[in-house]
């Protein structure tokens, strides 16, 4: 009785059958399609927007453009304008050579593994920087979402910047959906959506940012920009550079409505320290990028 498989009388026949099969396919030709390999990491963002700028018109995208540049990453950008292409249904995201797609959390991990990431040495300052980031991502983000998506004066501009590449009547439908989405996001962090409260929160956040920055070039006296600088800059840049409705572009709106559309931008412009900080960051970015 054969004890192991290779002693079985049929084994040589199976072996030769297997080796005969391994000769197939008899001929292998070149592939019918050769995808162009990605040469450098590519950041997929919203853009170019009404000002045709290299920086996106979306705050989160600008944050990551600034942060990747600060970390010395040589990357390409692609204006895809389609959040559904992202791994979490959101922009921005990064595709690295090899085809891996990274969302923002994975990007942070990838950066710390492959590049020198500037962080604040003092753990106390590090904790404070986290507080500043969360202040921006709550108070300032709420105000920005409200101003872009919910203010009547800015609806048309929002539709044009975010959805005009879609064919009619999709921009109208998607703009409506985005507006609902913005309301839902604001309501996650607030009990009600009241304009005056949201802008008051933003004004307080801007004051806090202005005081924390003080006379320094970057937050917490750092010599190099850190992630908190990128985050603050991302939001400030959009607050300052975003076009708002005027009486010529939107003649149907009242002066009060137009003033409401401008309110957030004016609140930011009043804080000269922050305006200077944003200008300094843009200058640095254009020097590095």
């Amino acid at each position: 009785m054969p004890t192991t498989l290779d002693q079985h009388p049929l084994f040589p026949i199976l072996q030769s059958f297997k080796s005969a099969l391994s000769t197939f396919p008899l001929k292998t030709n070149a592939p019918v399609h050769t995808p162009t390999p990605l040469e450098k990491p590519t950041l997929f963002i919203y853009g170019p927007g009404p000002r045709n700028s290299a920086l996106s018109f979306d705050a989160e995208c600008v944050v990551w453009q600034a942060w990747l540049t600060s970390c010395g990453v040589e990357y390409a950008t692609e204006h895809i304008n389609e959040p559904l292409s992202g791994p979490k249904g959101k922009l921005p995201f990064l595709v690295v050579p090899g085809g891996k797609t990274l969302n923002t959390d994975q990007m942070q991990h990838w950066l710390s593994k492959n590049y020198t990431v500037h962080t604040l040495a003092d753990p106390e300052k590090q904790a404070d920087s986290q507080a500043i980031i969360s202040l921006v991502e709550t108070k300032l983000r709420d105000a920005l979402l409200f101003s872009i998506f919910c203010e009547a004066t800015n609806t048309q501009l929002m539709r044009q910047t975010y959805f005009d590449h879609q064919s009619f009547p999709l921009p109208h439908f998607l703009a409506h959906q985005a507006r609902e989405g913005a309301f839902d996001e604001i309501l996650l962090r607030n009990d009600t959506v009241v304009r005056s409260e949201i802008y008051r929160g933003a004004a307080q956040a801007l004051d806090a940012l202005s005081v924390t920055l003080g006379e320094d070039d970057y937050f917490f006296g750092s010599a190099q920009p850190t992630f908190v600088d990128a985050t603050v800059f991302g939001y400030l840049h959009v607050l300052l550079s975003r076009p708002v409705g005027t009486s010529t572009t939107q003649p149907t709106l009242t002066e009060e409505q137009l003033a409401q559309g401008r309110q957030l931008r004016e609140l930011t412009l009043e804080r000269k320290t922050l305006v200077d900080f944003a200008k300094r960051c843009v200058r640095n970015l254009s020097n590095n990028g």
Partner: protein
Amino acid sequence: MEQGVDAQEYERQQVRLLDMLSNAAPTSAHVHSITVKGAQRTRDSFVLAALAPAFKARTFASVLNRVQEGAQNLTRLDIFDQLEITVDTPQDPFADRNEAVDIILNVKEKSRLCIKTGTEVGNGEGNMNGSITLRNIFGGAESLQAMASFGTRTSSAFSLLLATPLKSSPDHMFDFNAHSVVRNNMATSSHEEVARGLGIRLRSVDRALNGIHELSADSTWRCMDRIADAASLRQAGHSLKHSITHTFIRDLRNDPLLPTKGHYLRIANEFAGLGVVGDVHHWKTEVEASHSTEVGEQLALSTTFRVGLLYPFGEKLTLTTDRFQIGGPLSIRGLQTNGGGPRDSTDALGAEGYWSGGISVFAPIPKVTREKGWPVFLHGWLNAGTGVLSADRAKFSTESATDVPSNLPSIPASIIQSLTNTSPTVTAGLGLVYRHQIARIELNFCLPLQISRGDLVKCGWQLGLGMNFL
């Protein structure tokens, strides 16, 4: 004994009736009136329209033929359980008693509501489905059907169909449809697709060409999301497609599932991008031809050829969902489903031009097929085919590749040139075919002879289940 007498009597009566009919056939006759009995919901005018040609008949034979044709058409509309025709002498005292006849139709209507549930397996996927049909809703054989199905690849599909015959004829059907489909393409193209749309369709039998024409206009909003691989990220997002499609089908096979005689032809043309509405602009054409013949007493030979071309207008990339997918047990055997043509890592990108062809030989299994009556056959086959993208045509151009920028708008001729310059994937194999009542099941041992790098090959056993094989 009594039965034998009855049978003889019956036969005698049959012969007498036939004699009477053949004697009466050439005599002149015309229809004086048509009465419909038993129709509660069906409009008289609708039934009369179906039988109208009978009024033009001038001999007894043609009256009978026309009435019978009309009755057959009414039966095909699936609104009556029973339909009996009586030819009678006219009741009207003023009617010409020598020539005029009255036609009386006794009908029993089918129930208005029909609910069906079922499971289906075929064309590489399984699903469970249910439908509710309201028959004859306005008394003119109009039907309203609501359908829902949940399956392995088509995650969910809902449709609403309002169909009506034109001129009371089942040969000309018009329908309005609304549809919503969620398709899971994760396994082959790393995305999910949601498509919602409205359409109208006219289906018409062409007696001269022995086929069916189908003309449809459709507006569909598609949304590709849940992208799982970088290769498919540019497919993501919304797209609006407005298209007009014409399909001609001629099916003269003796069996659509496992034909041994006859031929099949399908020509489909789609034009998408009417006016400024919508963002999909292309011309898409696909031809499928198949011929089956018996060789000797035992063997059957079946040859199939398919070719397709998608020609985009403008610079926008065509979407995977509009392109042709090749490979799989129903396409090129020996390749995995959508495993052929242009690919990017694990994702099938779909082809803008493709061809595939197959030769199959079927032979009965001794002592099984004929003696036991099992519909199982031995099957040997050779398949070949390839698919290309227009963006790659510079690679296959006879001119220097550097002279032809790869982002040129595609030209059908250059896609055809790319197709002819690409070496096809060729596979061969042997197996068994089982002809089930509703589908054909194949178990094949596949050997890839020639492949293109990147093809997803299935070397060894492959199971195929479906209706429309190569």
